């Protein structure tokens, strides 16, 4: 009897810090057992061996920020049966999407002495702006248990059990004290996508939104609560403008506060 072929996994990198793909290697206990069920066919950070596509499951890290990458992502899509984007760079453009708010030429000349060498797009954009994406996993970085869940769900042919609710809910479930109510610490938990396990509040710190917006967040009410705590308009702009600055609800909300500064 012919041996059944293992499904093939590929990991792709675009503009990113490598942290999300590192999460796969950080699954120290699950890594070797996982390789019995899935063939790691393309993962340059971990292996010099490359197995030809097509790939059954592709994990895509990073955002699209160069003309070359804007083409390469289409090749990746063509070579992949099921494609999952991992992390804030891939799902929202990442911290490097801060360029989307200004003229990128100014950025280039700050960092590089000879700007002519730099070939870059005006914007850093999420993968889903370029190709069809089958599933998006959030976080900067992603949570490795959620990553294992996504891969296991794929192997079992079911939907990943990744909840779309807020960090606030995770915090309540964890039984943590609300930093906003108890200490008056501004916290983005009510509008931020769950997945971290309410880490910052557990460390007495307000959530800074590294998992990006939850589904239909009430950012207007969130900002009003922050304003009641004395947070200024310019700081509100910045709080929405970090690792998920280009995710729609955060993007629009930061624009609102920016225009308020200009109105004086």
């Amino acid at each position, binding site marked *: 009897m012919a041996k059944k072929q293992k499904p093939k996994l590929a990991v792709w*990198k*675009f*503009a*990113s*810090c*490598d*942290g*999300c*793909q*590192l*999460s796969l*290697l*950080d699954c*120290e*206990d699950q*890594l*070797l057992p996982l*390789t019995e069920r899935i063939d*790691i066919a393309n*993962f*340059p*950070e*971990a*292996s*010099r*061996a490359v197995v030809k596509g097509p790939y059954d499951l592709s994990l895509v890290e990073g955002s699209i*920020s*160069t003309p*070359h*990458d804007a083409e390469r992502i289409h090749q990746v899509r063509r070579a992949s049966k099921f494609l999952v984007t991992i992390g804030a760079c891939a799902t929202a453009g*990442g*911290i*490097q999407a*801060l*360029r989307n708010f200004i003229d*990128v030429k*100014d*950025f*280039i000349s*700050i*960092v*590089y*002495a000879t700007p002519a*060498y*730099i*070939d*870059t797009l005006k914007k850093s954009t999420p993968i889903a702006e370029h190709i069809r994406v089958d599933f998006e996993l959030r976080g*900067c*970085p992603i949570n490795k248990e959620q990553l294992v869940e996504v891969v296991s769900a794929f192997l079992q042919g079911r939907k990943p059990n990744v909840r779309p609710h807020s960090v606030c809910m995770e915090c309540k479930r964890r039984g943590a004290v609300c930093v906003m109510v108890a200490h008056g610490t501004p916290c983005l938990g009510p509008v931020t996508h769950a997945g971290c396990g309410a*880490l*910052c509040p557990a*460390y*007495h*710190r307000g959530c*800074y939104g*590294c998992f990006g917006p939850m589904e239909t967040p009430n950012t207007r009410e969130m900002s009003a609560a922050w304003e009641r705590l004395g947070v200024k308009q310019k*700081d509100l702009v*910045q709080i929405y403008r*970090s*690792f998920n600055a280009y995710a729609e609800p955060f993007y629009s909300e930061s624009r609102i506060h920016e225009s308020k500064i200009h109105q004086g």
Partner: protein
Amino acid sequence: MKAKSIKVDYLARVEGEGGLYIKVKDRQVVGFKLRIFEPPRFFEAFLRGRSFREAPDITARICGICPVAYQMSAVHAMENAFDVKVDGPLRALRRLLYCGEWIESHALHIYMLHAPDFLGYADAIQMARDHGDVVQQGLSLKKAGNELVALVGGREIHPINVRVGGFYKVPGKRELAPMAEKLKRARDVALETVRWTAKLRFPEFERDYLFVAMRHPDEYPFNEGHLVSNHGLDIAARDYEKHFAEEHVEHSHALHSVLRGAGPYFVGPMARYSLNFDRLSPLAQEAARQAGLGPVCRNPFQSIIVRSVETLYACDEALRIIDEYEMPESPAVEVQPRAGSGFGWSEAPRGTLYHRYRLDDQGVILDAKIVPPTSQNQKVIEQDLREFVPERLDLPADKLRWQCEQAIRNYDPCISCSTHFLKLEIDRE
């Protein structure tokens, strides 16, 4: 002899995206390019206008492999600007956090990225088929490092607990106790790692390097110290840019750091070790000796042993810190921003990481400069290959290519780190 070229289109088992191109004629390297095609992310640019408070979290995102290093260099630079001193148990906790990152990052490199080269495997997973116990051992060591980072920092990648002035929350003494048990086991594994790496076969290759690393009066360097070299350099962070410059070198299209008046220099574990052997714990010194290392190591392929010795030291040091730890009264010291410049550095797993910020009186960043270890090592990597390749031209092409890759991986290069600073070569034909 005909011209011959060695091409590695996509360097594997390094962090980030890079390629290598070497052209050889008459047994001489006539063309050399370490190509970096990692897209630029412009960190120094968008740090402008952000609050000093955000610098540790934002700069961490330059590199998912060594975020603690970025956080540490950032907080030191800010504290330097505001004349804040973080001492006692808070300082010790930072060191403890850093130990975790060294263990995790070194174990990753030793077992998953570097060892497969020595044993002829494409990766650690294939290596695990024949050397399952060894890979398991490496993973357990890596896990201990990650657990330590997560305990002090909140999570292993981009920890959330670091801030200018200290931490958001500090652990009680009792919370650290279970970690000590795990670290004792990790220390045994690290000792075994030194022995195991010492038995690998190393190409005969030594060079008289200019080593640069931090040095502290009584500790092996993590967060504090002067920058010294084996040729008499001894400077404080604020003088870094007076002594070091970036040069644009032909064939490479990348900026290379040089020590003014002396040229290329070497940062990272081998430099740190060779300049600070006397600061290692007795256990680490003894293990190094038994592994056949002298107090100075000049064979970059043996950096795998040096990393193991440093990993052993980091376990030992973490245990010492936990043992002496008393929970501080407050998780952070108060910080009052003021206008001025701040300079900071620390020893990232891959070498010295320098940060400099200019700030206004509200603590808003006016400009930033970050020099990561990999951009400092590029010139040395190139020199290594220029010497390494001509003597091995008779090897089959595939083997030579692999050995060149291995020579680059000696430096554990982190290309994600170096790109916000590197020029990219764009072929427009």
